[in-house]
């Protein structure tokens, strides 16, 4: 309203606008002086810089100069030619309009885009001045935050991958980190009534085990506390690339480090042209919508122009490349929505089949232990459970039920045999198959062996899976006669079985099995109570994949909601070159590779093949590495070590919190701080984007102000600040930051969400969290696929598929061409109907690294599976001298060294003379890893188990060729794509041998 009135007045009279402009410029000076007197924090800020700033209109008609010197401010009503920085408005009217609408960000960025306002001069001063001007809007620089907790402790709030936390701080040091327990004012939770009982979750949050290790990691001796340079790296002389991973480091100043990185950015672009900069990051790093890799990092990398590293859908693989072709769900990478399934499962289901599903270990990624109590309710209600997993996992151990242990990488054989029994004994929903599916006859004929004279009977599958035919027959009969929830993966649409050579076919069959049983009917759905709690899905708060402040409309979910709600300068990356993440080593060593897109917009997005280098682009010459280490998570990791040591890679900078993994292969290391040492804002388990409404795996929606709990340790800085200081050296400071501090961005995001409707900024800042109230029964989201099973319009609260992707009428039918569940996929028939690796119907195609590969199997007779770890999150939280090291099932201390664990059956161990906690060499032609042996009955003979995710890569000799003592189990896995028309990882197709290790090679 105010700005409307101002607009009306200003357009009427130039004299008024001139007068108002001059008055406001004087007002800025007065407010600065007042704040200087009142606020110690503002006094400290004024002491940071000595320079001259001015605000003026074009043509020097009106303006004012501000001098900052030794903490004092002076001002003159005139412009000068040599100010360090100048803010220039088109004219006084537009200046007044913008200055009176400082939180109207759409107006502000429109003015920037149209050059109604511009800044000149040095970025260092310009950004500081713009941030300072924004601080004048509020009397207090920072509202008080935190809760007094007695004994001089203040309780702050923060957030993690494993749940929101209270952080108790005393004298600037963290005392403890605990889960959040609600107070009397927080919203009441929901209640589900099922089978005569009522269930309500407790009024608190759970956290993952690694959260309790955080304090030890924040204060770890492996923290990077100052910038460093490899001792034998000289950007103006010998670079000694071959010594990466071998040479030591020396401390340098921030100015030296940032100057060196900025100069290298300029140099590689100057000498090689677009594409020469590659940036890569782990999929997960820290928590918060602003400091995230999809936010601050992406904004910077887009701003300088860099080759985009395409992430393969690593946790989804078989679902993305396979299942999607039968039911759509492209926006979820081929996984499914799970609305309303907690209530439906508890009320209706009689059986839950966990297939490659261990939510008690993997927590649905961000679900902490929220699903545990729901599964305990299911047990209390007598819902039967079956666990199909080569490893007797923790979900099976906790809940009980039948454990079936197939040979790894053969899952689809069992799936086909189950379908065989259903067909043979009439145990499927014929009406549903007739009305809601297409292509069943073709699949049925394949299963019955009418094409290849090979009926896919339970007896047939026994040869593949080692599971007795009678067990599969019993399972099929049980499943075919009970209302069943199928949980493929701990989070539906994940699971180790989807990350192997047969994983695509397995995931496809999971959809087809549910299509036979009436997906969406009461009690018949996907899940294991890990997802689908009845929370408020209408209340808007963005997930991290919506891109925060990235300005990125191409590779984040920003354009769905965030760009409208939080208008910001878009950041278009002018470099269109893409590098498949799994081929980074080849991109450097061979300077050539190709891949397929991870583009979930449509089913066909994945059919786009791309080549590297892109036409007219330079191969990558500089690597800007950020976040977690790839050694522990990417296949055939020794390739990465070799690539790092190549002279093709002229410069490597690693921005990292800890000195671990790949950081030890950098030329320059920039020390970032944790999200406990900076400001951010984020909702628990809200990823947005590819897992829309992921927070419904929590029992409560908990949105947190992520307090800056302590000052950054040592000289470390927030990622935002590091990128900003680099941007300033490239003249990009203003577009990068929009003149905002991190805390100002937090408030901007707060205002863009639905939070201001229910809580004030000051109260949110002080308390640190908000619990979104559970909704009335009638407002709960409907059950996924119920609409489909009942032939109605889609009614679950998700925007996908895109309107254009419905074949006939919007919201009617699935994303598939037929709009139905497709046993025979129309998209695959269109794309590559004769592809023997992925035919239009799911079939059994033996693994390319398994018991059928005879020669290899004789040499390496053990199937290694390497699921997501239980006590760390990929490489996050592992090692670094933290307390997680002491978890008996995570690492084992032997002769002063914490070794990674391989789990081996007692029979296999006895054959090899291996005793519990012996050091063993796990090896194949790709590499060797030294592990501690856990001798166990939890795994079938012939299979060994070791988690992925070691943060330590410590070759005992030459990096890239010698045994790794750190535990990077991916040293052993194949980098081959699951199928050639994909960009995918088959980490659970890995044959190895294990033998005792005597310690040779260790000095």
């Amino acid at each position, binding site marked *: 309203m105010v700005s409307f009135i101002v607009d009306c007045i200003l357009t009427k009279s130039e004299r008024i606008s001139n007068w108002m402009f001059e008055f406001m410029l004087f007002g800025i000076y007065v407010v600065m002086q007042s704040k200087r007197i009142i606020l110690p924090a503002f006094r400290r800020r004024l002491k940071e810089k000595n320079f001259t700033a001015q605000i003026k209109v074009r043509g020097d008609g009106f303006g004012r100069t501000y001098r900052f010197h030794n903490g004092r401010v002076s001002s003159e009503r005139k412009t000068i030619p040599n100010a360090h920085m100048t803010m220039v408005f088109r004219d006084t009217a537009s200046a007044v309009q913008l200055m009176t609408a400082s939180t109207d960000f759409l107006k502000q960025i429109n003015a920037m885009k149209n050059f109604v306002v511009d800044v000149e001069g040095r970025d260092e001063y310009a950004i500081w001045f713009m941030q300072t001007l924004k601080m004048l809007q509020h009397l207090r620089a920072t509202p008080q935050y935190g809760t007094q907790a007695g004994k001089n402790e203040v309780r702050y709030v923060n957030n993690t991958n494993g749940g929101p936390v209270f952080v108790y701080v005393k004298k600037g040091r963290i005392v*403890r*980190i605990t889960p959040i327990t609600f107070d009397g004012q927080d919203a009441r939770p929901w209640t589900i009534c099922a089978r005569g009982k009522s269930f309500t979750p407790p009024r608190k949050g759970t956290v993952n085990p690694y959260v309790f290790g955080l304090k030890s990691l924040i204060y770890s001796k492996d923290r990077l506390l100052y910038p460093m340079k490899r001792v034998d790296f000289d950007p103006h002389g010998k670079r000694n690339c071959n010594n990466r991973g071998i040479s030591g480091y020396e401390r340098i100043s921030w100015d030296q480090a940032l100057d060196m990185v900025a100069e290298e950015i300029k140099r590689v672009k100057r000498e090689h042209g677009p594409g020469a900069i590659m940036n890569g990051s782990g999929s997960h790093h820290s928590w918060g919508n602003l400091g995230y890799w999809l936010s601050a990092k992406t904004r910077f990398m887009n701003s300088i122009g860099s080759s985009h590293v395409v992430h393969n859908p690593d946790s989804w693989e078989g679902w993305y490349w396979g299942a999607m072709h039968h039911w759509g769900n492209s926006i979820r990478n081929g996984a499914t929505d799970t609305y309303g399934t907690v209530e439906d499962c508890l009320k209706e289901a009689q059986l839950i089949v966990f297939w490659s599903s261990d939510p008690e270990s993997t927590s649905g990624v961000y679900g902490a232990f929220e699903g545990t109590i729901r599964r305990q309710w299911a047990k209390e209600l007598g819902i039967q459970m079956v666990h199909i997993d080569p490893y*007797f996992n923790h979900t099976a151990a*906790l809940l009980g039920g039948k454990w079936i*242990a197939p040979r790894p990488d053969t899952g689809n054989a069992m799936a086909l045999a189950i379908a065989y029994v259903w067909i043979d004994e009439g145990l499927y929903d014929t009406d549903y198959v007739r009305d809601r599916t297409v292509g069943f006859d073709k699949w049925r004929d394949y299963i019955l062996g009418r094409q290849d004279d090979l009926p896919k009977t339970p007896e047939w599958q026994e040869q593949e899976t080692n599971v007795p035919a*009678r067990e599969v027959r019993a399972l099929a009969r049980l499943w075919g006669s009970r209302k069943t929830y199928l949980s493929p993966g701990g989070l539906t649409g994940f699971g180790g079985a989807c990350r192997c050579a047969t994983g695509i076919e397995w995931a496809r069959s999971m959809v087809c099995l549910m299509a036979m049983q009436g997906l969406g009917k009461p009690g018949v759905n996907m899940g294991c109570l890990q997802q689908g709690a009845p929370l408020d899905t209408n209340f808007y708060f963005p997930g991290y994949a919506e891109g925060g402040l990235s300005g990125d409309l191409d590779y984040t979910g920003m354009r769905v909601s965030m760009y409208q709600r939080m208008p910001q300068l878009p950041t278009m990356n002018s470099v269109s070159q893409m590098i498949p993440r799994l081929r980074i080593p080849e991109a450097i060593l061979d300077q050539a590779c190709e891949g397929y897109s991870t583009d979930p917009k449509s089913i066909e997005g994945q059919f786009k093949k791309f080549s590297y280098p892109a036409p007219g682009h330079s191969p990558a010459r500089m690597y800007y590495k950020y976040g977690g280490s790839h050694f522990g998570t990417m296949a055939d990791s020794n390739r990465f070590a070799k690539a790092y040591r190549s002279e093709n890679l002229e410069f490597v900078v690693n921005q990292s919190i800890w000195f671990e993994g790949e950081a030890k292969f950098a030329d320059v290391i920039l020390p970032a701080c944790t999200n406990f040492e900076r400001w951010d804002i984020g909702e628990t388990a809200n990823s947005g984007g590819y897992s829309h409404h992921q927070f419904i795996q929590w029992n409560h929606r908990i949105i947190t102000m992520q307090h800056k709990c302590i000052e950054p340790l040592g000289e470390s800085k927030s990622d935002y600040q590091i990128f900003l200081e680099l941007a300033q050296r490239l003249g990009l400071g203003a577009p990068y930051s929009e003149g905002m501090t991190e805390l100002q961005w937090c408030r901007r995001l707060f205002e863009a969400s639905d939070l201001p409707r229910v809580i004030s900024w000051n109260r949110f800042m002080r308390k640190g969290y908000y619990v979104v109230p559970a909704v009335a029964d009638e407002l709960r989201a409907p059950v996924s696929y119920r609409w489909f099973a009942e032939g109605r319009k889609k009614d679950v609260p998700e925007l996908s598929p895109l309107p254009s992707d419905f074949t006939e009428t919007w919201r009617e039918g699935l994303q598939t061409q037929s709009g139905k569940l497709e046993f025979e996929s129309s998209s695959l028939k269109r794309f590559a109907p004769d592809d023997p690796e992925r035919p239009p119907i799911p079939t059994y195609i033996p693994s390319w690294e398994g018991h059928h590969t005879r020669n290899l199997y004789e040499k390496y007779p053990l199937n290694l599976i390497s699921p997501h770890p239980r006590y760390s999150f990929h490489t996050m939280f592992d090692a670094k001298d933290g*307390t997680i090291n002491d978890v008996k099932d995570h690492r084992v201390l032997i002769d002063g060294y914490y070794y990674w664990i391989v789990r081996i059956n007692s029979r296999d161990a006895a054959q090899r003379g291996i005793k519990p906690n012996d050091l063993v060499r796990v090896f194949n032609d790709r590499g060797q890893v030294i592990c501690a042996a856990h001798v166990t009955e939890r795994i079938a003979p012939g299979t060994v188990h070791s988690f992925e995710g070691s943060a330590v890569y410590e070759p005992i000799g030459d990096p890239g060729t010698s045994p790794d003592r750190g535990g990077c189990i991916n040293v052993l896995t194949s980098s081959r794509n699951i199928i050639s028309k994909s960009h995918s990882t088959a980490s659970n197709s890995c044959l190895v041998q294990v033998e005792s290790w005597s310690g040779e090679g260790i000095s």
Partner: protein
Amino acid sequence: MKRWYLVVDVEKCENCNNCFLACKDEHCGNDWPGYAASQPIHGQRWMNIRRKERGRFPAIDVAYLPTPCMHCDDAPCRLAAKNGAVIKRPDGMVIIDPQKSRGQKALVRSCPYGAIWWNEDRQIPQKCTFCAHLLDAGWTEPRCVQACPTGALSVQHLEAGEMERLAVSQGLEVLDGGKTAGRPNVYYRNLYRFKKCFISGTLVTGDAGRSDCAAGATVKLYRNETLLDKKVSDDFGDFKFDGIPPNSGPYRIEIEYRAGGRKQIEVVVQESCSVGTVWL
């Protein structure tokens, strides 16, 4: 006076280690004067989680036993301590004074539960304090209990008599650390999962060419001529008798399946075992 008791449900423990790690979060790097010196970051396990795998592949189960200080009424460490270094508080907690206990390594050996750890740097014995410093400040549960996501750990704040009655009514047991066990204040539910054995088996009909799981068979467990337990085989033909003492010798299993199918098996129990696949 009300006293603090810890109750552990073995069946609900899944080895998440939240208790172990929350304990470290509270006690590593923090001195709590009068209660405990800080715990070294590595090496000590004030909440020690023990693992038990029962049976052989594939007939197995797994249980975990969180084992903190038992806060015994007749604490052997207190008897072994010199100059009053160990006190038993009226509210039940046993505290090793970090000052007075300096040099008293004998306390480590005195504990029948292995719950006391030696701090080499500070030359003091250390153990679980029940987070007395927090409960004294108004907290309602120690860190391990707050951290537990499954309900495996809980506290009771009761008069001694009330706790005894609760233990009887709910079938709670204490760990037996031997002759000098000292009357623990930590109680366990479903301790059989860790201490006792099972006998299991899988019933099958048909022949090698085509077999099926024999569901619904009646399976009886006898000791001499006494019927101990009766089960019905499940959908997979599996049965399982539990709670059998280890090394308890011979048992007899009788199986009845539909009309006429009858079978007897003799088992000698040393540890948990399966009779394997039984063809009916």
